[in-house]
């Protein structure tokens, strides 16, 4: 980012329907900064109130908001996330017909955006969902079981007793119990906060979800399949792995193309509504769930599992500082993402809340502000004021 303090100030604008407020994204302090980009953001948010995760029209909101920003800001890199199909499938077991209809609507929505924007798209399904087969309750173990970040398939166990380990290793629905040294070696990069890592990483069999500290109260009807492959439709050669997606975008941008990375939540190889090439969703045996770590791998082009590892002591990190109050689990801007490194204009729009404005690094980011499907409105973030 630039050196001018104003261009370095990330500003968050909340639109809670007919009412807006503005904050410094990092500190949460009220902000009265003004810039053309902020004015543009405020106007855009006012024109596009969020209809809600489950009320219909959520994906349409992404398309319309993005097209609006496209016209007014003229970006060359666009990141979109479409999540309505994921919300719908999480809370109810859908019939094949219902699922097919939802995927058809999604396809039309994405194609509308592509047709009207003229972008070169790379479309990635972040992995499908499958009916919940059952839960693995680790709340009664002597050690502390933790499963934050809406994780289903992964959990951590901290300070387990031999009895805990014996129980876990013999549990028919626990696929792996991996010691810290082993999974840290797999995650490659040096951990900044090793004390928050679990002593063992637990992996459930597909379809099973852990019940532990950090789980949502609403138990999902469907859970992420977290399979080894993601469907990917790109402009040129097939993309072999999820960390290769970034390179396709970078190359397109260098060639002067207007590039759009379109991420589809809850869409796997079985549902992807276009022909595609499979792209690996793995780091060795580890399959990504559609969480923050997967998003970072896509937008950074490298594996960053050490930053938000599965089963970590999330509350310890939360207690250490109160920075980025609007950014969920994120306590620092990740940096090194596509939008961060791109010198031209960029935007991100999505109905997957919290993570978008952190992982895209785009100049202007708009996302819904929903928590557990309660519709609080929208969040606009201006990371860059100097490109307008």
């Amino acid at each position, binding site marked *: 980012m630039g050196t001018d303090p104003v261009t370095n100030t990330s500003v968050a604008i*909340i639109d*809670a*329907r*007919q*009412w807006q*407020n503005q*904050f410094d994204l990092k500190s*949460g*302090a*009220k902000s009265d900064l003004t810039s053309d980009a902020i004015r543009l953001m405020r106007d855009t948010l006012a024109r596009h109130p969020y209809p809600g995760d489950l*009320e219909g029209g959520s994906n349409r909101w992404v398309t319309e908001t993005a097209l609006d920003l496209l016209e007014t800001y003229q970006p060359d890199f666009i990141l979109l996330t479409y999540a309505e199909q994921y919300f719908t499938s999480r809370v109810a077991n859908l019939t094949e017909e219902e699922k097919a209809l939802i995927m058809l609507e999604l396809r039309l929505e994405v194609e509308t955006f592509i047709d009207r924007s003229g972008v070169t798209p790379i479309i990635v399904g972040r992995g499908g969902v499958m009916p919940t087969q059952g*839960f693995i*309750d680790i*709340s*009664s173990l002597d050690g*502390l079981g933790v499963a934050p970040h809406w994780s289903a398939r992964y959990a951590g166990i901290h300070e387990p007793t031999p009895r805990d380990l014996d129980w876990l290793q013999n549990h028919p629905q626990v696929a792996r119990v991996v010691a810290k040294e082993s999974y840290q070696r797999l995650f490659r990069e040096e951990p900044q906060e090793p004390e928050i890592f679990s002593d063992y990483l637990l992996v459930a069999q597909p379809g099973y979800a852990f*019940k532990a*500290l*950090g*789980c949502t*109260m*609403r*138990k999902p009807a469907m859970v992420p399949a977290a399979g080894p492959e993601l469907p990917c439709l790109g402009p040129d050669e097939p993309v072999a792995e999820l960390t290769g997606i970034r390179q396709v975008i970078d190359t397109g941008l260098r060639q002067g193309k207007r590039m759009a990375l379109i991420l589809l939540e809850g869409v796997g190889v079985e549902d992807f509504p276009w022909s595609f090439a499979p792209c690996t969703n793995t780091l060795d045996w580890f399959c990504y769930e559609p969480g923050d770590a997967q998003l970072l791998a896509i937008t950074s082009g490298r594996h960053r599992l050490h930053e938000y590892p599965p089963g970590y002591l999330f*509350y310890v990190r*939360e*207690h250490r500082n*109160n920075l980025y*109050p*609007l950014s969920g689990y994120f306590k620092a801007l990740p940096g090194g993402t596509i939008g961060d490194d791109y010198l031209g204009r960029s935007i991100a729009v999505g109905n997957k809340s919290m993570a978008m404005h952190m992982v895209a690094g785009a100049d202007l980011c708009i996302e819904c*502000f929903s*928590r*557990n499907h*309660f*519709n*609080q*409105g929208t*969040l606009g973030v201006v990371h860059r004021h100097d490109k307008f």
Partner: protein
Amino acid sequence: MRCHYCEWRCDLTADRYGRCRMYYAESGEIRERFPDRWSTYETVRIESTLFYHVHPGSQCLIIGTSSCNFSCKYCSNAFVAKQDPALLQDKMYHLSAQRLVALAKKLNCASIVFNVNEPTVSLLSLQRLAEQARTAGIALGCLTNGYCTPESADLMGSIFSFFNISLKGLSGQFHQQYIGIPSVAPVLRTIRTLAEHHHVEITTPVIEGVNDHELDEIVAFISSVDNEIPWHVLRLLPEDRMKGAAYPSIEAINAGLETARRTIPYLYFHNFVGSDWVNTLCPNCSTPVIERFSLGCGGDQLQQLKLEDGRCRQCAQPINLYEGSYGN
């Protein structure tokens, strides 16, 4: 036999479970159908539980069970509060009181807060929890609708050290139509009883055009009980049977709180992200002494605590805070 936990005073038998479907009677005793079954356990900062004046910035363990004795049209936890509790049991955690207290200690929680559904539907489990918490010196708090009997209010007072009582309105018609109870009188009685000896905060969800005209009357009631009771006015997010209703206007509700702000010192208006009205101002010199960030229903968080020994740093005015441990 008659249940004496809440004002419905349901007739219980071995297979009649009362309005909340959580109790039955056997051998002349009221028993729980689902003892020590919890819908959640989670550690959060206490500001996200609707307690602004209890151990600010501290970590707490939140818990809940299932079911409720109200049938609010706008219930935000209907998936737990309104479901038949028997159908939820496969999703519940079975944790003993000892285990919950051990977890609270492990997680460095200053308190345990029951904040998902109505505690009067699970008082026996909560009594057991209180016994363990007392030994560990951990305070218990709860969010309650206050629709308990006088004897049950005493019992609640022995279990919990701090309360947030929901005062949803004042008129009988409102309570009949939107809450499903005949009268608010038991709630007002509970507030008076508990506020005598315990830390009490009060919450009022506002439905524009329905109960917003009562704000001045509500604050007059609160002031008559104790002028220092913190009052949380919430912008209601219409859920359950009111889903689809218009979101109340932030500006209109805020304008309606003008008189109330002159009446009591600790008034907060939130349940929407980015609220400007979540800081505690010194009642004497108006200096912000506790600054918070509002995340709406995602929970609020402490930003800055500018107190010295519970007093304003500018003028030494004491601020109404609960900072005790169990029973203090």
